């Protein structure tokens, strides 16, 4: 049994403890202890009933901690009753756990950290490494998050949209470390999709699968970004694409369109094209129109301008771009690309260099610098 499989039991074990009357914060600590023990001991001595084993060990850890705590409180003359053990009902409370960890009272970074620990079963050290902060800082971030949600009732449904935003953040932002956050986000979204029937959950899962499918082709061996049009499509993961498309189609058939389904639809159209030249840009523009209606996001309108440039020619793309605020992130990069397509290479080179200067991350800056260098070094 590997670590990810052990960790997949985390939400069930944690909710079992909470159902028995343990408070969330203490239960979460106890489950972490039990997980660490399992990761250490199970490879040599796997239990017959993994979840039962974890519940038993975690509950024992919880009682030990509660007793120590009670003794301490007694010394302080504040006796409190130990929670009574009760039956662990076989109800799937996973969803409640997701809601709690993505509670609107949490900041995005706290919600991400708490979700990875309490739902994902990652250790504080693993999460700290994935976000390049010291372990002590991450430990504080998590215990603060637990305090913030300590008064939240565990049995009220929350808003799925907040959970999806947190999972999207996990998928989209994180440094490379021993934990593959994109894979972890897919695992957690898949688990969520199994406990709630919601087209946007399916939409996000499809979006992640479709993007993850292109991962191997997205970076060159030297680490630089390979843009979609230049990717070796033979390296795309066809199984992941097929699963993403299947999940998306089932979601779209329910006719409750949302942001993630529309984004996934764009990703699916890219995945569907055998070559970059065969991409159905007209349909992609239509999906961006849907997205613009759903979100009113400036990023969507920027992406739409790119798609218009492909569907109706660079002049049309530039016209769409002209209607947008030129301080938007990546606005200059898009302008550079459309000017190059339009044959104005001097303007394109200048704009690529300007875009590189404004790029928010290293991979993108290098990519844009190379574009400028390519045009500047062309024979004249």
């Amino acid at each position, binding site marked *: 049994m590997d670590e990810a499989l052990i960790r997949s039991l985390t939400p069930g074990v944690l909710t079992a403890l909470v159902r028995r009357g343990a408070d969330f914060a203490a239960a979460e600590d106890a489950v972490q202890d039990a997980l660490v023990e399992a990761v250490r001991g199970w490879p040599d001595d796997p239990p017959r009933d993994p979840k039962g084993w974890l519940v038993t060990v975690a509950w024992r850890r919880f009682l030990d901690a509660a007793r120590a705590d009670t003794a301490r409180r007694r010394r302080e003359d504040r006796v409190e009753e130990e929670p009574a053990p009760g039956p662990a009902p076989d109800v799937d409370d996973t969803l409640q756990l997701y809601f709690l960890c993505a509670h609107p009272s949490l900041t995005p970074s706290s919600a991400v950290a708490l979700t990875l620990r309490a739902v994902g079963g990652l250790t504080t050290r693993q999460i700290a490494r994935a*976000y390049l*902060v010291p372990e*002590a*800082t991450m430990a504080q971030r998590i215990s603060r998050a637990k305090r913030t949600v300590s008064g939240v009732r565990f049995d009220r449904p929350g808003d799925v949209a907040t959970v999806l935003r947190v999972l999207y953040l996990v*998928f989209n932002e994180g440094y490379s470390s021993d934990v593959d956050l994109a894979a972890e986000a897919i695992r957690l979204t898949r688990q969520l999709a199994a406990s709630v029937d919601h087209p946007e959950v399916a939409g996000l899962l499809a979006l992640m699968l479709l993007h993850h499918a292109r991962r191997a082709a997205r970076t060159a061996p030297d680490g630089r970004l390979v843009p979609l049009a230049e990717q070796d499509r033979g390296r795309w993961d066809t199984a992941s694409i097929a699963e993403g498309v299947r999940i998306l189609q089932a979601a779209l058939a329910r006719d409750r369109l949302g942001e993630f389904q529309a984004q996934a639809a764009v990703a699916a159209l890219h995945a569907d094209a055998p070559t970059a030249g065969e991409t159905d840009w007209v349909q992609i523009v239509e999906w961006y129109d849907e997205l613009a209606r759903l979100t009113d996001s400036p990023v969507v309108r920027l992406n739409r301008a790119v798609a218009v440039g492909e569907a109706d020619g660079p002049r049309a793309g530039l016209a769409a771009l002209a209607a947008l605020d030129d301080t938007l992130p990546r606005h200059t990069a898009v302008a550079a690309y459309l000017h190059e397509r339009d044959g104005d290479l001097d303007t394109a080179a200048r704009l690529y260099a300007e875009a590189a200067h404004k790029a928010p991350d290293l991979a*993108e800056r290098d990519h844009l610098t190379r574009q400028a260098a390519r045009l500047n070094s062309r024979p004249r």
Partner: protein
Amino acid sequence: MAKYLLLKHYRGAPEPVNAAPMDQWTPEEISAHMQFMQDFADRLEKTGEFVDGQALAPEGTWVRYDGEGRPPVTDGPFAETKDLIAGWMVIDVDSYERAVELAGELSAAPGAGGKPIHEWLELRPFMGVHPTVTE
């Protein structure tokens, strides 16, 4: 979730409001300043926003490659450069606004007369991670 560098300058930053150099403070004022810096870092660790903080010695040496098989060329140490970094703190926060708020608080470190220095701190965002979904 974004990391920022708070740069503290010995020289090169605009003149602070309370500009008396540290060697003209009282020993108690120096202790109060150091305690403030430590408390600030401790507080950020508790809020889950602290990444790193270091002070630098004022003297630096310029070093450069001098060709195959030759030792690097050094120049200095110099104490008299125009811009001198005194130290840094790295924070990991949810927004630019939060970073500005914290830099503002750090700039209130007490100096001469126990009054805030109103020192100018340089706030520099880290280059971020490249998001997966960009197309």
